[in-house]
């Protein structure tokens, strides 16, 4: 009998050791959501929808290339189709872990490349409800992560991870992320303000298989306090296209190659 007990405990030990911590879940989630493939391309349509249902559309091609592994440096290149007053504008972000991004913008009307001061990753991306951080990720180390519970969200088994900023000056109190246990994509995220009231809600509305990689192709960020929301659709998503490093340069900011931006 004793032997059997020992066997059972021994059998349980590796399982215990294999259980993921909150931080590990978030690292896997970051890798699955923001780093899959060597590079990535999508046509992005963002609908900014006000409480009065007025709709504004931002349409762009987004190209992303990883410089290293998950959590490492990335480069983003964006080309705007809409609205008309920013058509042909390009935008480039060099994203670094643990320090501020470098950002450049090309303004076609005056043919000018401008480097932009960007110390705030939590500021709005092109006026939408998404912040830069929501688009390109937040450093895992900036928050403490703990698995609150495990539960089903629709048909998917999820970890619910509570992330609390380590720095006291963060503009939010904490967030809860529902991470799909099977593919580690974040399916839902609730952001709470510092008083503990929910103010932003992210939902992954559609996940598609792109070259074998589960990809969130429709997502919504809703500001629950203002009623404003942003719906984002990725079309023509693709991975591992062989985007050259040279694309991420002033030369191509000024003259974006059609083969990449169309």
């Amino acid at each position, binding site marked *: 009998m004793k032997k059997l007990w020992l066997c059972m405990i021994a059998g349980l030990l590796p399982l215990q050791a294999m259980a993921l911590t909150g931080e590990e879940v978030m690292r896997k989630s970051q890798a699955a959501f923001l780093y899959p493939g060597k590079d990535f391309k999508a046509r992005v349509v963002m609908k*900014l929808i*006000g409480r009065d249902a007025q709709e*504004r*559309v931002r349409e762009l091609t987004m190209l992303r290339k990883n410089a290293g592994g998950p959590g490492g440096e990335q480069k983003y290149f964006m080309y705007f189709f*809409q*609205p*008309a*007053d920013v*058509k*042909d504008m390009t935008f480039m972000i060099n994203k670094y872990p643990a320090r*501020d991004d*470098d950002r450049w913008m090309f303004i076609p*009307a*005056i*043919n*000018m490349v401008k*480097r*932009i*001061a*960007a*110390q*705030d990753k*939590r*500021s*709005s991306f*092109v*006026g*939408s409800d998404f912040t830069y951080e929501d688009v390109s990720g937040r450093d895992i180390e900036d928050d403490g992560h703990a698995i609150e519970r495990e539960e089903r969200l629709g048909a998917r088994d999820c970890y619910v991870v509570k992330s609390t900023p380590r720095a006291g000056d963060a503009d939010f109190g904490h967030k809860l992320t529902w991470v799909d246990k099977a593919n580690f994509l974040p399916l839902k995220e609730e952001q709470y303000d510092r008083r503990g009231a929910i103010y932003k809600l992210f939902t992954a509305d559609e996940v598609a298989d792109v070259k074998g990689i589960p990809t969130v192709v429709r997502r919504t960020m809703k500001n629950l306090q203002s009623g*404003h929301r942003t719906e984002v659709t990725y079309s023509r998503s693709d991975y591992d296209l062989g985007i050259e490093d*040279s694309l991420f*340069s*002033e*030369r191509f900011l000024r*003259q974006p*190659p*059609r083969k990449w931006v*169309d």
Partner: protein
Amino acid sequence: MLAAAPAAAALAVSGFLQQNTAFNASGANPDGRHYKWLEERAQLKLDATSGNWRGYLKADGAYDHLGRGGLTEVREAFVDYSGGAFDLRAGRQVITWGHGDLVFVNDLFAKDHEALFAGRPLEYLKRGVDAIKLGAYPKLASFEFVLAPSFRESRIPDARRFWLFDPMPAVTNRETVRPGQGEWGLRAYRDVAGYEAALYLYRGFQHTPSMRPDNLAAPTRITFFYPELSVLGASLSGRAGSGVLSLEAAYYDSRQDRSGTDFTVPNSQTRLLAGYQLQPWEDFNLSLQYYAERMHDYAAYRAALPPGFPLEKRWNHSVGARATQLFLHQTLRFSVYASRNASNSDYFVNPELRYSFSDRVWGALGANAFGGKPWGQFGQLARDDNVYMQLRYEF
């Protein structure tokens, strides 16, 4: 088969309809009118791409209610070829180099100063130059070489609409002589330890005219001309602290008067610019800049300057700032640009409110205010303060 198939050509057509009015805020124009600008304008843009080739046309048609009437204008018209490590652009094109905000150190090609002071959209500050631009991008650095076979001058404010300083108003017999030659510029740039470093060369002419009377004692005729100019410059830009620092310097070699003894030709100069840009909070940008000009042959300039002409200082310092705040999901923008010259008390202030009514329609309401010494760049425009409106429908 696939490789042999010609790349599909793509054509994009876009443009806008625009109304632009600038009301005088302090009295009438020299021509008696009360507007700096009053026009309707349409723009058509054609952008065609096929393989490595691209053709681009941006053409305007406008009707001016202040005496110029109907006019058409080719803003840009060029053909691009993009190869592996080089590219070529031939035709009318806008060249923008350097880091200044409405201050130009290494950005030498033609501007439209009238557009800036008359409350037109910012893109009209730039004039296209008819040129061939060759870009080469070897590993060492990137190069842009611009060759313009014929010189294109900057547009200065029209003396019928703006009160311009004129030291010899009685002399009405005036002519303008444009250079018979062209101009060229070179920019070489690369990353140096996270900073963008650039070198610039320019050989051509001053873009705003100098005036030369036929006789100082009893002038009967004034000739406007564009003095020969060469420029050697450099710039550096990158992150510093939580913002972006830009530094720029240039040596202006006034080839037509290296000794500085001809008072009608600008003295050789050093120009310096330092700019710092930061984002203290969400959707708010602040940029600060300091700009200085130093005359090289000041003693010769002083000695040659005829009595009665305003005396410039050896050093000319100015400071400027631009603050921009976005509201309502970045559809409403309030910005203020202000600059003040510490050497001659010149100032220029331009607040502007711009709102996107929809994705296709935006409007702007702004003002231009000028002041300073009567001969200063902005001081001479002290009676030209205006309030402007721009309304544009884009398609």
